[in-house]
């Protein structure tokens, strides 16, 4: 399972469970929002990843 901001690269090499991350510089973060909101975003991305692995 891969979380990446560079989806086309991951698709090209054949990765089959993918979640689009939030930017190259912070795949599972966001420097522009509060710490609390950032953690919520991170949790959402990780939960998406876990959901993909159960399919």
């Amino acid at each position, binding site marked *: 399972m*891969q979380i*990446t901001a560079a989806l086309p690269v991951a698709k090209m*090499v054949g*990765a089959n469970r993918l979640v689009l991350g939030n930017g190259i*510089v912070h*795949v599972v*973060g966001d420097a522009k929002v509060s710490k609390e909101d950032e953690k919520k975003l*991170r949790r959402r991305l*990780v939960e998406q990843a876990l959901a993909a692995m159960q399919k």
Partner: protein
Amino acid sequence: MRVVHYLNQFFGGLGGEEKAGTGLESRDGAVGPGKLLEQLLGSDCQVVTTLICGDNYAVENREALTAAVLKKVRTARADLFVAGPCFLAGRYGMVSGALCAAVQSKLNIPVITAMAAENPGADLYREFIYIVDSGDNGAKMRDVLTRMAALAQKLMRHETIGSPKEEGYLARGLIRDEFVERTAGERLVDMLLKKVRGEPFESEMSPTTFAPVPKPPAIADLTKARVMLVTDGGLVPKGNPDKIQGSAATRWGLYSIKGCQDLDGADYEISHGGYDPQFVRQDPDRLVPLDVMRDLEHEGVIGELHEEFISTSGLSNPLSNTRRMGREMAAKAKQLGIDAIILTST
């Protein structure tokens, strides 16, 4: 010409999988496929030594095996080192590739092996050595040995080696300058017209291809799963203990997060030359989501977070290298009993 030939336990006649743990053995003269190889190489060539080793022993003791084989080849005063053919046998292919590459670089004599393009050894070593495309059918032994012998003869005589297609070896990704009559534009239009007409044509560029990766089965019960975090974003402990290069990395590291609830930027640095690292430096959870994984672990959503994460730097790296590291990481995760991996990529 003196030839040393390497075989695994099966082709060397020791036995099947039950003999895969056998260490390196040496025989005078040709054994098994070596007899036909010797014939095909011609009367001036003699297989002086055959080295036989079990596949498991070879993979598990690769450094010791390589040192031992180099010594034997040197002692035999070999003019040519041959390994295989290996067809689809993965361990045999990887070891044959490694031994050929080592003999070529340390002893500077021609080397040749053969395996199927799908053999994991092919991707790892095709850039460094000539690997005859054996296909996956062991019944083609004579045909494969014939091509190996022909190519080996050319290598020993320092003759110009033709294209992969002409000689029957796996493309090494080498580009050779050549004088041609027609300009690139003319050749391109010619190819295009052939394509439009549905005629066969051969491109001068071979794009990199990726074999489909089979999708691993779904996790049946996440609440029992051991999850591991992996990143190619170059996050390493301060001081970069494994000296993981920031570009074209040849190494990866396994780093403890035991008892840690939240990664602290003061403990880590980033060895990756391909993105602005300031945000991850401020808070490494932005790359390796440890804080969230701990919450999910405490809530019982996942069974357990493995107490180490894997890291390397994914930038400007030859495929042979990244494939090797990927295989090593997967083997490590298997050994650790990991059920699921979340890989975060910049």
